[in-house]
């Protein structure tokens, strides 16, 4: 486990949560299924989305040894995926934030705002792609495989969808009770469990002369069990309104989100903890 990487663990999970939920909420806002009042309330609730994203960026600078030079991270845009990630991340924050500000202040025509929203969603997708590419380093065999994109996209789904529904519920939207979100979340959870088992099996095939991937994290089983239990607990809370045919409440979904977030946070800690190179 790599607790010392907490800034990167926070940054990546928060960013994936924000972008994942932004894509859902943005799609809903573009689809025109929301009444004007619902839209207004949702925009207010989306404050928390930008708060999470902002927190993520703040955490990411804590990873740097020289945070005052953080601007230099953009020097290699085009050739370094880390530069690309920061570039598109900032652009997402700027475009999405600008859309949000215009909507809150009711400035700009609806057309302009919709264009901005769609652009921010696209940039968000590119941001997520860059974030995956950052870790596909050919000298790091434990990251340079299919499990990295799987893990990252699953965080967008698990944590992102739940957060989107939490915001919809907070905004008292009619869409808050939509079955699709928890059902998609459940499918993602099943995929996540299967992928985890496959990845743990795959570790035994990754070795350098001095490091065996399967032995890097000694309490792996415990960590995976805790992580899985948290995820299932979150899923149970998420599903409860569907089973009892109640409306979801923030009081229910907020703790569900916290559980899911911690579960993904631990998974990301395992991810960073698995770092090794092909050499020594």
């Amino acid at each position, binding site marked *: 486990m790599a607790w010392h990487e907490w800034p990167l663990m926070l940054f990546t999970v928060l960013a994936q949560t924000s972008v994942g939920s932004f894509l859902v909420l943005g799609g809903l806002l573009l689809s025109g299924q929301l009444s004007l009042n619902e839209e207004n309330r949702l925009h207010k609730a989306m404050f928390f989305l930008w708060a999470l994203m902002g927190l993520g960026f703040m955490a990411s600078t804590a*990873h740097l040894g020289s945070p005052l030079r953080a601007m230099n991270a953009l020097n290699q845009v085009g050739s370094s995926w880390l530069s690309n990630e920061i570039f598109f991340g900032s652009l997402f924050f700027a475009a999405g934030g600008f859309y949000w500000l215009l909507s809150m202040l009711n400035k700009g025509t609806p057309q302009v705002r919709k264009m901005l929203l769609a652009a921010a969603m696209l940039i968000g997708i590119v941001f997520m792609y860059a974030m995956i590419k950052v870790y596909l380093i050919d*000298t790091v065999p434990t990251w340079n495989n299919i499990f990295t994109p799987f893990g990252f996209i699953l965080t967008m789904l698990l944590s992102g969808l739940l957060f989107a529904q939490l915001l919809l519920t907070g905004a008292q939207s009619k869409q808050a009770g939509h079955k699709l979100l928890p059902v998609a979340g459940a499918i993602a959870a099943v995929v996540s469990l299967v992928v985890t088992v496959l990845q743990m099996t795959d570790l035994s095939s990754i070795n350098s*002369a001095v490091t065996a991937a399967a032995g890097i994290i000694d309490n792996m089983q415990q960590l995976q069990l805790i992580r899985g239990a948290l995820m299932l607990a979150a899923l149970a809370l998420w599903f409860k309104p569907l089973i009892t045919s109640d409306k979801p409440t923030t009081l229910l979904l907020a703790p569900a989100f916290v559980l899911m977030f911690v579960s993904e946070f631990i998974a990301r800690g395992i991810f960073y903890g698995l770092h090794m*190179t092909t050499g*020594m």
Partner: protein
Amino acid sequence: MKQYGFYIDSSKCTGCKTCQLSCKDNKDLDIGVNFRRVYEYAGGDWLKEGEIYRQSVYSYYLSIACNHCDQPACTKVCPSGAMHKREDGFVVVDEKTCIGCKYCSMACPYGAPQYNEEKGHMTKCDGCFERVEQGMQPVCVGSCPLRALEFGPIAQLREKYGTNADVAPLPSSLTTKPNIVIKQNRNARPTDDQSGHLANPKEV
């Protein structure tokens, strides 16, 4: 293009670490920061031959700094451009630009980039390029009492000693194209070997 490199004679090296320490002294490096590191790769087992048991214990040393690779894994990922390959082939960190993201040290399979906690940025073997420019040898090379290290234009070293740069526990030389030539110890194991282990993890 100019390109320097190191010749590392693992058949002579006794693992005395004079190179590691002379570099530390010259560059004034703190505990835990080593531009040159001496890796001890060791293994072996009991072998049954008829009624008797024989052991096959082995160990050998590899003195590795930065290989100033042709395809550096470090520069490829660096977001600030601080880690760069110079005209003369040396791969050097511009310590005034580095943001201390440690990404280069995650990518380098030779453990060459060494993070300096106090400075808040990355440091690394610079090939003693300032000395080399004045026609001198790198400090580490000159200090080796066994004469197991040599430095010079890599083309000359390869002409003299061949082109091998693969031995456990180094990664395959195909990935970063390191500018080193290694003379193997008689116990040398191939790059993808699994029979041994790193015997001195705290020293490197």
